[in-house]
């Protein structure tokens, strides 16, 4: 991704809550509001989602003998 494209997107994301929300729901429309022309690779970087693994605090494993 071109440096100026990234800088613009990060600046908008940092300062504009509406833009941030739109990026979450509809990244295509969010980028269109910036007026920037993106390359195919840059669009792919915006749209790519990875849901395979999550980062999470692991709950305690409390092995119990219960009677519920």
């Amino acid at each position, binding site marked *: *991704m071109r440096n100026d494209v*990234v800088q613009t*997107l*990060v600046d*908008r*994301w*940092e*300062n*504009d*809550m*509406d*833009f*941030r929300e*739109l*990026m*979450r729901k509809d990244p295509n429309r969010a980028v269109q*509001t910036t007026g920037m022309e993106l390359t195919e690779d840059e669009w*792919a*970087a*915006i749209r*790519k*989602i*990875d849901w*395979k*693994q*999550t*980062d*999470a*605090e*692991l*709950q*305690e*494993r*409390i*092995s*119990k*003998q*219960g*009677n*519920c």
Partner: protein
Amino acid sequence: MAEAWLARAPALAGVPAAALTRLGQAAVEAQYAAGDTVVQEGDAADALYVVVSGRAEITSARGNSAVPLGVLGPGELFGEIALLDGGARRRATVRAPALLLVLRIPAAAFHALLHAHPELEASFRGAADRMLLQSFIKLATPFDSLPPERVRWLAERVSRRQAAPGERIIEQGAAGDACYLVRRGTVEVVLQDEPGGEGRQLAVLAEGGLFGEAALVTDMPRNASVRALEPCELLVLTRADLLGAAEAGGVRNRLRDLVRWRDRPLCRPGIEEHARSTSDGTVITVLKDPQRGAYYQLSPEGRFVWRHLDGRTTLRELTMLHLREFGRFDPQVALDLVGDLARAGFATAPRLLGALDDQAAGPRHWVARLGRLVDLRWTFRGLDPAMARVHRLAGWVLARPVLALQAAIAAAGLVAFCWRAGLSGPALAALARWPVLPWVYAGVVASTLLHEWAHALVVKSYGREVRAAGIGLYYLAPMAFVDTSDMWLEPRSRRILVNVSGMAANLVVAGACALAALAVAGGEAQAVLWLVAAFNYVSVLTNLNPLLELDGYYVLSDALDRPNLRQESLGWLGRSWRAIRSRATVRERRVELLYGLAALVYAVALTVTTVVLYRQWVLERFAAVMPSWAAELAGVVLAALVVAILLAGVLQDMRGRART
């Protein structure tokens, strides 16, 4: 009539009567219906307006939305700012929310007034400047959600400061007593990694940028220096100004967000990293805090973020690095993960003052408080050395030949119990005879201890820690437990073996007792052995229940490779139940949907059953010592308490943290 209205306008109070008459003659009444636009941002300025009746809403475009700047009432005027700037474009849009009546004064009449009375220009410019200042503050992050009266309050309090090119406005390491909003010019934020060094540029802020806020809301020294790159005009806000503005919820959230985004987080010392594979072959990292016995799972992307929590890298920089590494632009990844790591105690986070701190100790909501009563524990810690000694002495129990023997006893005992199930009736009847009940009770306690000991033994056989054990109440029923959290570091198959080891011990004890019961010739001994066997079989059945956090739940959770299955499922259900109407969502989230619904239904059924039993118990005992109405009331109160406690546990999970 127009002249009479103009005479009442406070903004025109200094205008001589003769000039007011001329203005009145030039003014034209105009009426706007609800929703009409009076002036449009960007249009050429050709008149100013005085509100006669109704209200005028002022907004300014920001991105795709219109930011409300204020509302004007009768006697107030608008449209003069662009005229004072010599016919500049409109800086805002004015609309009528309902029927609006105004007097429209053409630009020529206004300019004629100023030409004839130049002393009035200062007054108009002063009012315009105040209005522009308020608009500027309103459009600046993080003040865009401030209500109009709060914007006016803040505009009256801020002071101004000029900065020459190269001037240091903020010095790293100094105490902070003010923050700054860039009105004009640009500044750079510089981090000095070493004293006396040049420092590296972290950011450049232009008009509307806020800096210096972190020291005010965390009470920490300045974490970077700021230098003017060109002549700057700055608005200066004190801590009182900033915290006063932060009383508005939207500003508070925005400020908190800004401080966290600009932070340079650091991982806590002493955290261990352990790699292991998941069921699909992905290598994940499990963080372990040996001091607290806490664990955190990181995906490969999460590990990348973790490795860059060095106290020098900002989240902005982390976003860029993440993009280069994974080819994905997602600033939210770093922000969310760092926030969660900080909340879980694995990374540092700026500790915000007072109402800004959303991590203040302990949940205060009544649901959270009651939810804790669902799982009450009395915990004994520091047991691992003792468990290690027991494993050294008794680890032979896990040798293959011994396991085979235990399996044979369990199987034979089960067959025997089913074959002679008719002994159960006489055994239960024998409970009333001395000393059957105390011996049965001793057998139950011994079985429970053996169940927990089995878990601990298998954990130690894998070289993992058993940090704690204890007793308690789970969903108001007595239980004993062992903390096997260290098994998060082991692969799925080993975790499942630990989970089933307790139930396996129950089956062996039950089998041995059933066979022994058949070997003795009736009497109290047979009754005791039979009832202990029965207890162990019932324990296996209840522990297989995956809908509460018993052994069966952990088996299911590990088999699906879904840590936190219950919290994630109920949390998703609580947040997203409306999305169930979508087939795509049902397909994508079938695990959360099925488990969440099943757990919810079970909790309700358990609650109803418990209420009925407890109420009956209370009525029988209380009725013997108090009037029936009092016993009935006690039953109702207890029932309500039981419902509240049991359902609070589920509700707490449904209110759980959002995770996208």
